């Protein structure tokens, strides 16, 4: 290819990505840079900002609510990721069968993902309402409860885990279903001819071939879980007694209720570093164990 043709192709290429790149730049890169500056300021988003160096970060180190919010975020993530990923694996295996109404079952599993978070939140608020909700009504029928659910400081975080796992399971299931259907039939057949039982086929053929999907889902779910916010905003508003004040909720509260813009930006950067470290560790561990079929 002549260099002129290459150059004009280059230009065309840049033109094609320009709209997307401009959007990402405007709504992605610029805020990232701006919030870094913000994190070194005392900024109430009203009066002129003041430069205070690392004071925001120093203050974070002594903030018990911040420490608690990190602990809750980690607890949430440690529950959400395995429950949603391995729960989805089980359901995907069940749905990867040739039975009647299979399309209906797959649709049923996916519907919560397509439902808006706000609608989910309102529905769960009613289902889990301690006095009039259907969850306690059913629990009462079998002699359990009543539970406070979202309104009990000791249960709220777990109720949020249940609600979000329900809401996101379908997405993971779809990924696993696609991966399952990409497993070559001949590999399974060969294993069967070699005398492997169902469990050994699953353990030594299917599971390794699913590992790229598993790695993707674990990394993706972890990033999402560390940043959980919407479901909490529409149900508990971080309560009761801050039991569901996770990192992003605390950030939001600082920025938009208390107008501590700089402090909130510092929280965002701590969260960013946390996410980065966790993702890198996961990818590093993953690359040592994941099988990519060629």
């Amino acid at each position, binding site marked *: 290819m002549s260099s002129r043709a290459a150059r004009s192709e280059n230009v065309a290429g840049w033109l094609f990505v320009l709209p997307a790149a401009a959007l990402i730049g405007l709504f992605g890169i610029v805020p990232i840079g701006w919030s870094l500056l913000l994190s070194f300021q005392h900024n*109430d988003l009203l009066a002129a900002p003041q430069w205070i160096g690392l004071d925001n970060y120093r203050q974070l180190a002594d903030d018990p609510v911040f420490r608690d919010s990190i602990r809750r975020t980690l607890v949430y993530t440690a529950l959400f990721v395995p429950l949603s990923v391995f729960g989805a694996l089980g359901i995907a295996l069940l749905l990867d069968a040739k039975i009647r109404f299979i399309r209906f079952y797959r649709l049923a599993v996916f519907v919560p993902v397509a439902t808006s978070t706000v609608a989910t939140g309102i529905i769960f*608020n009613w289902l889990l309402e301690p006095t009039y909700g259907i969850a306690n009504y059913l629990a009462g029928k079998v002699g359990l409860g009543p539970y406070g659910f979202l309104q009990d*400081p000791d249960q709220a975080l777990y109720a949020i885990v249940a609600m979000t796992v329900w809401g*996101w399971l379908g997405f993971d299931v779809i990924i696993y279903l696609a991966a399952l259907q990409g497993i070559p039939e001949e590999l399974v057949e060969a294993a069967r001819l070699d005398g492997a039982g169902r469990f050994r086929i699953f353990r030594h053929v299917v599971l390794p071939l699913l590992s790229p999907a598993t790695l993707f889902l674990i990394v993706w779910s972890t990033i*999402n879980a560390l940043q959980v916010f*919407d479901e909490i905003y529409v149900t508990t*508003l971080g*309560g009761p*007694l801050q039991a569901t004040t996770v990192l992003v909720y605390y950030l939001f509260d600082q920025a938009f209720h*208390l107008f501590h813009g700089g402090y909130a930006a510092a929280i965002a950067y701590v969260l960013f570093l946390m996410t980065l470290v966790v993702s890198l560790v996961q990818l590093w561990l993953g690359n040592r164990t994941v099988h990519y079929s060629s």
Partner: protein
Amino acid sequence: MNRPLVLLAVTLAALLPAGCGDSGSSGSGGTVDVVMWHGYVDIEGDALAAAAKKFNASHPKIHVKLQNYGNADNALQKVLTGIRGGSYPDIAYLYGSWAANIAESPKTVDLKPLIDADSSIDWEDFWPAERGAVTVGDKIIGVPALVDNLALVYNKQLFQAAGVAEPTADWTWDDFRSAAKALTDASQKQFGWAYVADASEDTVWRFDALLWQAGGDILTADGSQAAFNSDAGVKAATLLQQMATVDKSVYLDNGSGNYANLFNSGKIAMLFTGPWDLSGFPDVEYGVQVLPADQNHQTISGPDQWVLFDNGSERRDAAWEFLKWFTSSEQAMAFSLATGDLPIRASQTDLPDYPKYVAKYPGIDMFVKNQANAEKARPVLATYNEISQAMGQALQAVLLGKAEPKQALDQAAQQVDQILSQGS
């Protein structure tokens, strides 16, 4: 967890009105455009549009443009974003609790000189609670837009069914507590009272009324320290504790506003609420009474305001002209009559339309009378949200039975003292 989308939507929502605001410069043909941001919808939106139309017709030199900014809860953020971007409204509807924050912005017009120079506005005619809410130091940062107060709203049928005498203007806390207990029926999932226990300002301001009734105050007179952990405060918080955790006569709302639906379904006998909720009770025959007393019957008023922002003297003068007209007694009465909002001026009660208004909105006259019980206002401080949050957490702990009143309030007071000593 669709964060990127949510954030994008929030950003766009914040930017959109700002973008539209550009068109607010001086129009052609010598008319001045005034851009007004508000969150009114339905009946209130129609009433505001009608008022703007009427004004534009009678004032050919000024053209008022209304722009709805969506939910008023996020209005301050949107106005701030607009100011950052250099494109902001001339007038915006903003909550009273933001007064101190608003006063910090250099773009906010101080109305004090304008009011002093113009006796036609009759400033003293606005209720004291309204004037207190817009006064920040020696500045006046807005004109009252809406006023309300808390009164006791009760379901007459439930009182009759339980054989309990209806609340009177002489009711005490003890009368109230024992009535709530008598009106509670666990087997029917029926409660005597409801309390919003989401630790937000909704939780705090109902407590403020109780605190004032017991003779206490939120801060010390000089505003330097917390005072809500006084004996009066502990007494008020203990009332909440006893009713919620011992009598179990209180339905604790988690902030979703279920209490209004439940009251309308006859599951809750009494509420401390304001006139804005009345239209949500078509299915019950309700009565309205002043709040029960400890030492007095004080209530709390939550005024909101129209704030003027400086887009040059021409637009500022035009905006001021419109605000004076819109908040005059006659126009305010027309708005009240259309919407059921309380009169923002005392003189509205003398107007010929006032009896029509009282007849149209059952129970509203008690709220108008009750406005006289709104003697005190919450502190106007930029750190108020932090103070409210500390108090809200303490009250939530008490209501959920997780802390003793004295201990919880003392702890919150300690936090508030620290907030006050640091500034914002």
